[in-house]
């Protein structure tokens, strides 16, 4: 039924549709006609989502690792090619991106009141940048999208943000740019090592290329010292994006100041680029370095989980609380990845999606209440459940999803990650459990203070419950949360092949390192993911 997508450059269409939408808005829509602009932009994002859904059905679970390939010459002189293609991991992230794009745009209709034309242009450009990152199979192309995306996000925070927007925007831009230029050195080192050679390291003499599978191919011959260097520079780039402790300080600022939709995209998709970078590049290309640095990586992940949770507990501002909860949740995702076994990585990729949904929804919900009361302070609220029952219900479901209650999506992801972590080293799993407990504590405490108790603040009386548009952008997320929570099998099925591939890449090396006698490396214990 969806075979036709194989005959057309479906990925390019999905990627550039928002770009053309943005260009159309720039050149053909008048600035004062904001109602038309917001409808048009949302429509473009919606079409983009609709076009991306067939990917899910047409994707051959047992087929090639990378599908929907597009390949064309680009800059021959340096061997950069236009290569698109997705595996199961990218597929899920692309669907998440197109979905959150529509929801974020819908939520902006009432939230954004000034300079609407520019706003929707930047939102659409951002979509193109993010989709390109997940689709690119050429390192050069990947890097172009990776950097391009920073510009619209900078403007979204800087123009439509809160009181400290200038500071937050430039901090976001500087942090991530430093990360990406440092990462660039690693990309160039790989590129040179694969071809003509890197001074002092020799080279493999292959034709010059940025083709990512080629780097996967040579992962076993890259010398360990070189792997270590490249891993470190990649780590800087990706860890800032995730963000891992101690590179996280830009995140709370950016989140608190960003407008709701930008927060949704930031938490939902942008942070995933860091974790995606680890699972796509660091682990499979640099397996020996991964294993060697594992104690440090896991240490930082666990610190992130617990630190993020503790700081979240101390927040008075709901949005800031959600921002710090992201630090904690992303620490979880990293822990799963570094378990280096199928369960851990499966759970961690699924948790990327879960976090995108539940944290995205939390930001949307915070946006809803902020539009009504213009404050996000927990202390200003209390007893809202009587005034806004629908809102309270959805908020509760999302809260439960975020803390990992069974039947909801968060449970599946966290549980699978914990299985992976326990299997690797038992106390990693234990640390993860602590994080879950703390997570339940701060979320429930926040929920209780906002929704229960007496309605003491008179300003909260008579607040409108959710309207239709708000329901329209919240309900899909709730549905997905239940779907993943009750029947996650289709998702794991899509992930099976790429995750096995990553594990085999990183673990074959690991076994070799063991036989060579790495003294204090933990014993590998592989278990199958349960789904």
């Amino acid at each position, binding site marked *: 039924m969806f075979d036709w997508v194989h005959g057309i450059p479906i990925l390019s269409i999905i990627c550039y549709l928002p770009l053309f939408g943005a260009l159309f808005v720039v050149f053909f829509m008048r600035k004062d006609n904001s109602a038309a602009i917001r409808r048009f932009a949302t429509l473009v994002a919606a079409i983009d989502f609709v076009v991306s859904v067939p990917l899910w059905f047409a994707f051959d679970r047992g087929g090639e690792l990378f599908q929907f390939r597009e390949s064309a010459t*680009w*800059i*021959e*002189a*340096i061997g950069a090619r236009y290569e698109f293609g997705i595996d199961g991991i990218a597929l899920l992230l692309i669907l998440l991106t197109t979905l959150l794009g529509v929801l974020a745009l819908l939520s902006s209709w009432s939230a954004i009141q000034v300079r609407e034309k*520019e706003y929707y242009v930047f939102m659409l450009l951002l979509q193109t940048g993010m989709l390109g990152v997940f689709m690119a199979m050429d390192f*050069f192309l990947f*890097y*172009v999208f990776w*950097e*391009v995306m*920073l*510009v619209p996000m*900078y*403007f979204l925070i*800087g*123009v439509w943000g809160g009181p400290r*927007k*200038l500071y937050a*925007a*430039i901090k976001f*831009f*500087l942090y991530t*740019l*430093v990360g990406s*230029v*440092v990462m*660039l*050195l690693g990309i*160039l*080192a790989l*590129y*040179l090592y694969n071809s*003509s*050679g*890197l*001074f*002092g390291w020799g080279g493999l003499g292959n034709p010059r290329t940025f083709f990512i599978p080629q780097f996967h191919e040579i992962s076993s011959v890259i010398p360990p010292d070189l792997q270590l260097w490249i891993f470190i520079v990649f780590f800087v780039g990706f860890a800032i994006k995730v963000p891992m402790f101690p590179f996280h300080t830009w995140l709370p600022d950016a989140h608190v100041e960003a407008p709701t939709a930008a927060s949704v995209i930031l938490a939902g998709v942008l942070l995933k680029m860091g974790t995606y970078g680890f699972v796509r590049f660091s682990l499979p290309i640099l397996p020996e370095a991964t294993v060697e640095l594992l104690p440090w990586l896991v240490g930082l992940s666990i610190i992130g989980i617990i630190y993020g949770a503790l700081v979240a507990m101390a927040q008075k501002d709901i949005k800031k609380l959600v921002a710090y909860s992201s630090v904690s949740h992303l620490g979880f995702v990293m822990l799963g990845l570094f378990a280096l076994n199928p369960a851990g990585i499966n759970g961690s990729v699924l948790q990327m999606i879960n976090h995108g949904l539940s944290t995205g929804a939390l930001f949307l919900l915070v946006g809803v209440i902020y539009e009504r009361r213009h404050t996000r302070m927990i202390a200003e609220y209390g007893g809202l459940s009587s005034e806004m029952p629908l809102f309270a219900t959805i908020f509760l479901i999302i809260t439960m999803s975020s803390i990992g209650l069974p039947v909801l999506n968060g449970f599946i992801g966290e549980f699978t990650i914990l299985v992976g972590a326990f299997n690797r080293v038992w106390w990693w799993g234990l640390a993860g459990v602590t994080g879950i407990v703390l997570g339940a504590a701060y979320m429930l405490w926040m929920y209780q203070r906002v929704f229960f108790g007496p309605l003491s603040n008179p300003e909260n009386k008579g607040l409108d419950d959710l309207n239709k548009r708000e329901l329209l952008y919240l309900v899909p997320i709730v549905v997905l949360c239940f779907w993943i929570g009750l029947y996650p099998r289709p998702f794991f099925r899509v992930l099976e092949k790429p995750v096995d591939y990553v594990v085999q890449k990183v673990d074959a090396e690991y076994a070799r390192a063991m036989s060579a006698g790495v003294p204090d490396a933990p014993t590998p214990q592989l278990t199958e993911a349960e789904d």
Partner: protein
Amino acid sequence: MTPIAPQEFYLLLPEIMLATSGMVLLVLGSIGRGTSNRAAALGALLSLAVTTILVFWAHGEAAEGQVILAGMFVLDNYAFFWKIVFLLATALTVLLSERFIDEGGYRAGEFYSLILLATTGMLLMASGFNLLSIWISLELMALSSYILAGYFKRERRSNEAALKYFVLGALSSGILLYGISLLYGTTGTLALEDLAQRLALVTAEGNLLVGVGWVLLAIGLFFKVSAVPFHVWTPDVYVGAPTPVTGYLAAASKAASFAILIRIFFQGLSPVVVDWQIVVAAVAALSMIWGNIAALTQTNVKRMLAYSSIAHAGYILMGVLAASEGGLWAAMFYLLAYAIFTLGAFGAVILLERKEYAGETYEDYAGLAQRAPLLAAMMLIFLLALTGIPPTGGFFGKIYLFAAVIEAGWTWVAVVGVLTSAISLYYYMGIVVQMYLKDSEESSTTPLRAPVLVGTLVFCAVATVILGILPGFFVEFAKASVLPVAWSMF
């Protein structure tokens, strides 16, 4: 010495054409009330167009690497590439100069005549194959530039710029010449090819003299490309000179200086490459660090762009440092792209300026996105290109400079390069903050309504983006034009 065949002069027709039209403009501009601005500009553009055709013709006519006029000039792909860059940058400068002469009430004929003469000097520099012909061509360019920098003769800042430029420029030319004389004294030749052969034979006793010679030569060249620590003239001259002239200095003059720097280093000084590499590494790193740090505190856009130009000299020197074909074509591509987007940035400054110098501070850009969305968007593209963010020519050029320098083993220079690029984001974004994130003030100027200027800027902006996403053709052009790198590093 072999007699010179008359047809060798034909191959010099582009330069002859340009010099002649420059002088004709000068004469016409001095008769009676002089030429109108528009007529002079049209004349200049016309002669540039004819010269471009002649350059193509001469390139087709000459054999690759044909040496003419007793070894003074060479017609190779390398020279051809630069001539195209210079002519393009000059044409853009002429187009950007439309308004400022009228505003100040200065004579137009002389201005364009000087621009054409300076460009003649550049074309000769690109072809120069003998230290003497290179030096004389350089002086032709430099002397014309000194006058251009002081073109606002009733403004003190312009006078100051011209005087500083002249005094320091003359000093550096003297140093350059002294270096040349020492090399001549040791080797007995000024021809680049002979020089390279004889330098390889220099004995241990001769080494000191050669060493001092090439260091002085290098200092002179670093001065011309405004690399730290020989950059001190740059900010004052850039700020004081009329903005189109500043753009011309940053785009064309810098490219021409790099053209001879690369030719002298790689064709004349190739036997001492290992010696000069460490010097180039230090100068490149210092330029990137100081240029970018000093730019952080500027409040005047032209001054900021001056420091940015110093920093860019450092980035481009990385290509020289790499001493590989990849490094050279990356540097050449980058200079081409840089010429376009830096002229674009100066063009945006011109549109906002009033009465010589007003409208140059960051605050003058406040709310520009509201007042003039097109201009703000174009300025954004130029600033992103200067920072090196895709999809712009600045990004692609920079990436390959980094790759070349890492490949050659100078990883620490590349690290300095990427970190200072990240720093540069802060001050370039300073303008973006004003344009997009601040509101207009009462005193904010509205940009000029000048269709030619706006059209030129649109051209620059589109070209900047094309160089970023489809650089293939231009890369091939640069790649086909690199000088052969004669030795191997390893």
